[in-house]
């Protein structure tokens, strides 16, 4: 975890700016990721092209709702919550945070932890595309949406990576200094 790493003496002044830039990029990339198809399946008598959302609906239709829940969590809920969390973190550290510093640090730790788990979709599509190649019987092909989705996940990871958690505490200490001064 980042908190235990060795840092230069002071947090980089533009760490928040860089994190914001990456978070914005992630938000932008989430739009094509959810609008465009992520994979297509050639089945006998059918050519299915699924977006993330239509895939979840299809899983529900087939009665596989636990699976649908997992996919919904991993590919929709987590990226959105993560972006929301990042946004809140960046917004809150605009000013000295005071007593909220501990809560924000916990939020940061959580965001950093869940980041890598959002790649489930990308892994699934890569796996299916590589293995399901049975010619006329079934073929799975990746579609542009999955690239946008992977980019969005990478950008959220870059954003949490760029954010220096000491910004929370430096603004906290600043505020205590101000209080004592």
């Amino acid at each position, binding site marked *: 975890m980042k908190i235990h790493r060795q840092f230069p003496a002071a947090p980089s*002044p*533009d760490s928040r*700016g*860089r994190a914001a*830039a*990456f978070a*914005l*990029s*992630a938000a*932008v*990339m989430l*739009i*094509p990721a959810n*609008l*465009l198809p992520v994979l297509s399946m*050639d*089945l*006998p*008598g*059918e*050519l299915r*092209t699924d977006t993330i959302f239509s895939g979840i609906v299809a899983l529900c239709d087939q009665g596989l709702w636990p699976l649908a829940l997992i996919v919904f969590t991993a590919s929709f809920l987590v990226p959105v919550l993560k972006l929301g969390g990042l946004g809140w973190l960046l917004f809150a550290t605009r000013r000295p945070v005071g007593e909220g510093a501990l809560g924000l640090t916990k939020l940061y730790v959580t965001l950093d932890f869940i980041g890598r788990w959002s790649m489930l979709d990308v892994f699934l599509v890569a796996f299916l595309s590589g293995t399901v190649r049975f010619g006329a019987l079934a073929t799975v092909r990746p579609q*542009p*949406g999955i*690239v*946008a989705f992977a*980019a969005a996940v990478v*950008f959220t990871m870059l954003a949490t990576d*760029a954010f220096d958690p000491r910004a929370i505490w430096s603004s906290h200490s600043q505020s205590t200094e*101000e209080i004592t*001064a």
Partner: protein
Amino acid sequence: MTQPASAKVTRASRLPIVWLVPLVALAIGGWLIFRELHSRGTEITIAFTTASGVEAGKTNLVHQGVPVGEVTQVIVKKDLSGAEVTLRLNKEAEAFARADAEFWIVRPEVTFSGVRGLETLIGGVQLNGRPGSGPPAKEFVGREHPPVAEDPSQGRAFLLRADKLGSLSAGAPVYYREVKVGAVETSRLADDATEALIRIRVYTPYIDLVRANTVFWNAGGAAFKVNLLGAQLKSTSLEALFSGGISFATPEGKDGLAPVAPDGASFALHDEAEKDWLKWKPRIPIKPIDSEPGRQPRASDLPAALKPN
């Protein structure tokens, strides 16, 4: 409270280069969406009674030999009465998503009057269509059979009324002096079911042969006569023996030839020729045999009866 002012100045002096990243992301994301929306044509569904051979992702809508749409789904109708084919059209083929467009399935077809759709024997079936010009539409009913070529510049169409169809089928030849000068296009029962209606097309070089008083008779099948002197088998041609055929003759008339029959003129179709019909020998100049069928006749080519006054 004294220092923060000077700190602010250094921080806000320039926009960090990292802000290029969201801009690039915006450009790429916008381009991805634009490309998807741009390449995506309209999706239409066509109902067929049978869709055998139509495969999603493989069967194409082919127009003038160029694929202009792809079948994305083939399902049976909810009431099991037929099949429903979903087709995604290419952007440039939007004219197929209009109310009066027609679609049919091309399968290899071998008849006595010719072989059609031979390329589909190996490559699988194709969908063919005729673009429409009406208001945009998404649901169509497919044709059972390909429509006959209706190009008014290629000859002239006439309607024949017969008591019975006989062995005439689409594509059957139309003869003048046993030279093939046209073909049967389509046939159906008259609205009141008292007659069979047959539409024929006489090709451009020969349209002058059909006059207002021309007689048509069924030349198809074979006449097999047995009498005391022996047996006689008579047929116009081998093709006419199997797919039927129509012959016609034009009388000379007392005061010259009758006027040329207009497009869509209607005639009775007799069961067989009367003896003297076969003796008629009017002199009718025909158009040069190499006049292109697709070319509109020039005013100087037109027979006198069709010339504008």
